[in-house]
């Protein structure tokens, strides 16, 4: 082992800050002679090489994960603080949901996340949510990644959620919003694959419906009135800067691309509303 071994730790008592603490002193041996250096040096070198070599034929603890290949068997822990998401109490099983999204994504040739915009199921109850728009999460958020936009619901004559805007680009996944929510409306999922090509796609509206809380809708017996309580909200869009809206020289998401070269027509910049 060369210069130091674990047995050369000496335990003693030493005073510090008015107390006596038990101390392990790392002892120092006499420096080795040149002959010892040569001998112990070879020994230590060979020991280290041997340890590395043993891993070739006995991979005892192979901890390498082949990430993109092992996606099917990847187990994300239940508490993993990934993407924020609305809880939908009536939601169908997640497997079915993602299969449906995949199917729509293939048909429309878009990303599954964007494909959620095309889901207009007859069974609207799936997207009923717990959120009341009370803004407790917005207050708890340390860096203003959440904005709650409320509207006045005409049927119930009360405030309700219009858009729950979550900015993934500034979120730090600290879980404060989930713990602060008195209505159990949001949760952190295990999703972590968030790469997109346009940073405007990182500003999400989490709610699918601008609607009052689920129990208030379900108390209403008349389906016609119930339908009037609900307005659909897309995943992107709304009055938040970069929330899917257009900017000067940047077309809105989904809008047709501007064909002219912006350099040659510097005076006529196309602005998508």
């Amino acid at each position, binding site marked *: *082992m*060369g*210069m*130091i071994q*674990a047995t050369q*730790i000496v*335990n003693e008592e*030493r005073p*510090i*800050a008015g*107390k006596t*603490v*038990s*101390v*392990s*002193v*790392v*002892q*120092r041996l006499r*420096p080795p002679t040149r002959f010892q*250096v040569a001998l*112990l*040096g070879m*020994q*230590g*070198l060979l*020991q*280290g090489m041997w*340890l*590395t070599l043993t891993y070739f034929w006995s991979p005892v*603890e192979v*901890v390498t994960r082949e990430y993109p290949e092992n996606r099917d068997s990847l187990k994300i*822990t239940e*508490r*993993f*603080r990934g993407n924020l998401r609305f809880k939908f109490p009536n939601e169908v099983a997640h497997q079915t949901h993602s299969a449906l999204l995949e199917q729509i994504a293939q048909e429309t040739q878009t990303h599954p996340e964007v494909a959620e915009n095309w889901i207009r199921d007859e069974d609207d109850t799936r997207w009923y949510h717990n959120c009341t728009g009370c803004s*407790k999460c917005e207050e*708890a*958020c*340390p860096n203003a990644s959440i904005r709650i936009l409320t509207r006045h619901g005409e049927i119930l004559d009360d405030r309700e959620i219009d858009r729950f805007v979550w900015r993934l680009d500034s979120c*730090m*996944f*600290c*879980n*404060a919003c989930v*713990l*602060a929510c*008195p209505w159990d409306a949001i949760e*952190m999922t295990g999703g972590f694959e968030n790469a997109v090509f346009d940073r405007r796609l990182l500003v999400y509206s989490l709610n699918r419906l601008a609607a009052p809380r689920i129990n208030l809708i379900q108390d209403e017996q008349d389906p016609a009135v119930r339908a009037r309580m609900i307005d659909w909200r897309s995943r992107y869009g709304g009055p938040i800067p970069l929330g899917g809206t257009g900017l000067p020289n940047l077309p809105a998401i989904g809008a047709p691309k501007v064909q002219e070269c912006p350099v040659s027509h510097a005076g006529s910049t196309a602005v998508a509303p």
Partner: protein
Amino acid sequence: MSVQIRTLEEHLHASPQADSELTTQEYLVNMGPQHPIAHGSLRVVLRLDGENVKFVIPVPGYVHRGVEKMCEHLTYRQIIPYTDRLDYLSAIMNNWAVAKTVEKALGIETNARIETIRTIMSELQRLQSHALWWGVTGMDLGAYTAFLYGFREREIIGEIFEETIGARLTMNYIQPGGLMYDIQPDFAAKVKKLIPYLHGCIAQYETLLSGNTIFQERLRNIGVMDGAEALALGCTGPILRASGVPLDLRATEAYGVYDQVNFNVVVGAVGDSWDRYYVRLHEMRESLRIIEQLIDNVPEGDYATLRYNEELILPEGLHYGQTETARGAFGVFIDSDGKRPHPRRLHFRSPSFNNMWVVTRIAAGWRIADFIAIQSSLDLVIPDIDR
């Protein structure tokens, strides 16, 4: 002991004094902020005569984010996730420092279960931090294998964190008046399985690096610093203990349940880079000892004694609390006006900031390669310096 302070500008204008017979010229060379030794982005200006380092002056500030100013607009619960981003390898101890200060100021009671879990988590975090540091030190000195081994242990501990906390790096786990989550039911079993495994890993570390003569020669008697100088520079943590001063807040302040467990404060005999290296390695064994004593009988109780949405307004005045992180004493200094739920002014006393200035005292006179060994043995975390 007086410390001479010369600004970088004065060094630039100082006349080069060549002390060899050849006509040589001194150069000022920037090491960093992109150099691998900079561990992030610390710029170090070296005054070189050939390969001899005449003087070293660190230039921090490349990762400055103004966290202390931001915290003046945040509640105390919102400050805690920001402390994860200072010394990100000791996130739990940083969280604990804020939680401890707020609890002391408001007189919030915690129970034995909370304190025990906090202590276990802190020691796991210390193991994780030292494992990573060991690997990075190996890589700095040219042993790339060590880097992979160090990261292997770090990820295995990280999985235990992920199960209970939900994060691997930015924990945000310890809250004022409790914890964010209760531990998982199989937490104790997993940690108990980990302890013998980690003992084996530390034995592997000894075989791979400690027993290597080249590695020993590169650390032994390089950058010797005695205890008085370390105290004068305000060093804490393993750097101070390697110089022979047994100051460990876990033993002297005895927060958490550290007063109920037996562990030794590891100190060095000489104060050179080898001591700084080996003190940390043996601290890993002591951390495992602490976890062994606690993991079998975590007391029953609630994991939080406060509602999350409770408004915490500290009484007017100055409040200070500190914990022993993997790098030294992390202190939180809060000035509250007693009216708002935000601090009027907040200061983080970060260990790496004081430890960084050691290089100005002990690196002069060595070669560049020795300077790298010295800086590796300091275990700096740059976001902790710049804040």
